[in-house]
């Protein structure tokens, strides 16, 4: 019996990110007005690098959750106050934690994430090089009988 509420909650969570709640208030639901194309472009780029903290995997730019609407307005206001992108990100990290950054910061504890694939590539490349060297150690004839 306990699975049903859990299922509903999951569905609700899923919907939270695709549907605004029914009681929308304040001017925040109105679309943001941009002063010019440059501001719009900067805003979209910045919002794309921030996470909608309510939703698991949506950027601030894409989400329709309540908090996303508030945060988008906040970001625009901070932009207009003259803050740099880094300052805006710090402002949000102070309040929501690192989670709000869509791109994990390159810091001490994310080194595995960023370096891991590179290391794997290097090790794998070494293995490939060894195999190729060993297989080609003795002179290799060309294979004339191949189809293509």
């Amino acid at each position, binding site marked *: 019996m306990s699975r049903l509420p859990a299922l509903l909650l999951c569905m609700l969570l899923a919907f939270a990110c695709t549907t605004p709640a029914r009681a929308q208030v304040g001017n925040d639901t109105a679309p943001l007005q941009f002063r010019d194309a440059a501001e719009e472009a900067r805003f979209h780029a910045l919002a794309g*690098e921030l996470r909608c903290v309510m939703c698991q995997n949506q950027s601030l730019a894409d989400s329709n959750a309540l908090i996303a609407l508030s945060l988008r307005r906040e970001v625009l206001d901070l932009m207009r106050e003259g803050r740099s992108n880094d300052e805006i990100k710090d402002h949000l990290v102070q309040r929501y934690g690192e989670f709000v950054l869509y791109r994990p910061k390159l810091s001490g504890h994310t080194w595995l994430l960023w370096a891991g694939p590179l290391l*794997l590539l290097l090790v794998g490349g070494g293995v490939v090089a060894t195999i190729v060297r060993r297989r080609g150690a003795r002179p290799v004839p*060309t294979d004339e009988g191949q189809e293509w």
Partner: protein
Amino acid sequence: MAVAQLLPELAQVALLLALLVAILQGVLPLLGAHRGIAPLMAVARPASYLQLALVAIAFAILTRGFVVHDFSMRYVADNSNTLLPLAFRYMAVWGAHEGSLLLWVLMLTIWSAAVARFSRSLPMPVVARVLGVIGLVSACFLAFMIFTSNPFERLLPMPAEGRDLNPLLQDRGMMIHPPMLYVGYIGFVVPFAFAIAALLDGRLDVRWLRWTRPWTNVAWAFLTIGIMLGSWWAYYELGWGGWWFWDPVENASFMPWLAGAALIHSQAVTEKRGSFNSWTLLLAIAAFSLSLLGAFLVRSGVLTSVHSFAADPTRGLFILVFLGLVIGGSLLLYVLRAPRLEDGKPFAATSRETLLLLNNLLLATACAMVLLGTLYPLLADALGLGKVSVGPPYFGLMFLLLMAPLVALVPFGALTKWQRDTPRTPTAMLLPWAGLSLLLAVVAYFMAPQGALKTAAGVLGAGWVALGTLRFVWSRLRANGRFTPEMLGMVFAHLGLAVFVMGALLVEAQNMVREVAMKPGQVEDVGAYRFEFRGVQEAPGPNYMADRGTVQVLRNGSPLALLFPEKRTYAAGGQVMTDAGIHAGVLADVLVTIGEPLGDDAWAVRMHVKPFVRWIWAGALLMALGGFVAAGDRRFRRRPEASPA
């Protein structure tokens, strides 16, 4: 009628019998192959057919439950109601965990039966082992389903009305996405079972490997279609124009795809040159293991995602144990037996073997990267590093970095000979085309209204792969004009890759989005497109009430499309969903969604222009076509010559 009322119980009996048959299919033929006892091995084929019949009966009964609104079945009551249209009732069978698991098992039995039917050219011990392994996997899934996720549980007293199928799923695209995906995922059980059979036997005979290649190709092709359908569905259903989110569940299907792509290439080398035997077997194990891992991630609640089913730790534990046994067992067998199978044929540094090694290296690293990124949040949580989350900025960047070298190497593969070639030959053939691609990229760079660098990169990559592949076609035409299905398949698949690269990079670079408050009669210009908002009316649907907007779209002044974006409120649960109005075009899509009413007849309207987005799915379809065509090569089906000893 009494019998009809007891059908769910009959289905459960059928499933229990299927479990029994699966166990027999697993144990007896493997024993028979080990001891050389023919009657035991002969159990394999009939057992496969019987299992299919039993599971099909259960599936049919579940379907019937939805069609006739049998709310005494808990699963039917949870996932449908009397208002749900018939088409969606058929589809609701796999709309939630228990039913989708039944679909999974059905697909598994279909593949098993297909192997039983189309394995005439294989010696009995091989067939027995392959079907035996599939039988064991099937038994595990059936056990999991019967003991933790029974789709035929009763709900008494029977409610008069059911809940609803998740409205996000009420759509035709959703009807075929899971079945296609499952056919693909599960199809990897065939090369997997074959790998295990070879390890158990202690021999890898390339003639038998040749038999598995079409199966791998077909499974991969279906998986490509399944993933493509998911992407396309998300695009038009979720309404914000995204087509891939690197969501954990999406990644769960992408990892087997990457491993499968590597496997296809590795199998080619093993079959033709007798090299990389151990690696091919390991990849076959890995591809199916990743499919199983994917099933685990979606159903165990370990990772949250908008896709995942509800969390249930006991269920998660059960499937984890099963995962551990299957993957652990296979890997143990591999580690113990694989060394015996190595056959080191020589090849020079410049050879197709080397290129395919690099192909496998890059694809395998990409697969590992996706796995790392998907599990990293869990790892960080386990190690107490706080709540980290990994999304498209990570995956997108890393994937691009790993795939760029691969894209650069693709045209060389077909033009470089096996075993030994001179670097000069393929390079000379391709150099003019590299030059042309570069030229096209530079032109694109200056012509692009925005995102010039990405546009140029897309044109360069796509042009290079396409022209390089066409150069190969030209060489063949000049040589003798003969194309084996394998070659054709490769051509289609690589062209598909080019089309995909073009679409993916260009839509990222060129897409435009604008969100504006609009009143009826207002007009907004986005690029060359003009959007005229004509207001919103109420429009009822079969099981929902919608606010339907009307938007006229013009391009360069002339009318292009009349779009009807909707905001639907579903009767059963009150969920609100946006349905985008989309005009599909070969060179660009136009998308409109309506947001909230802002009072005074004004509405929030979002407009997207997405150039080249259809190329993404066209490219994927081409790749899938390539897989199917290559599988059709008669060489794979020819009965091999008698074994020499």
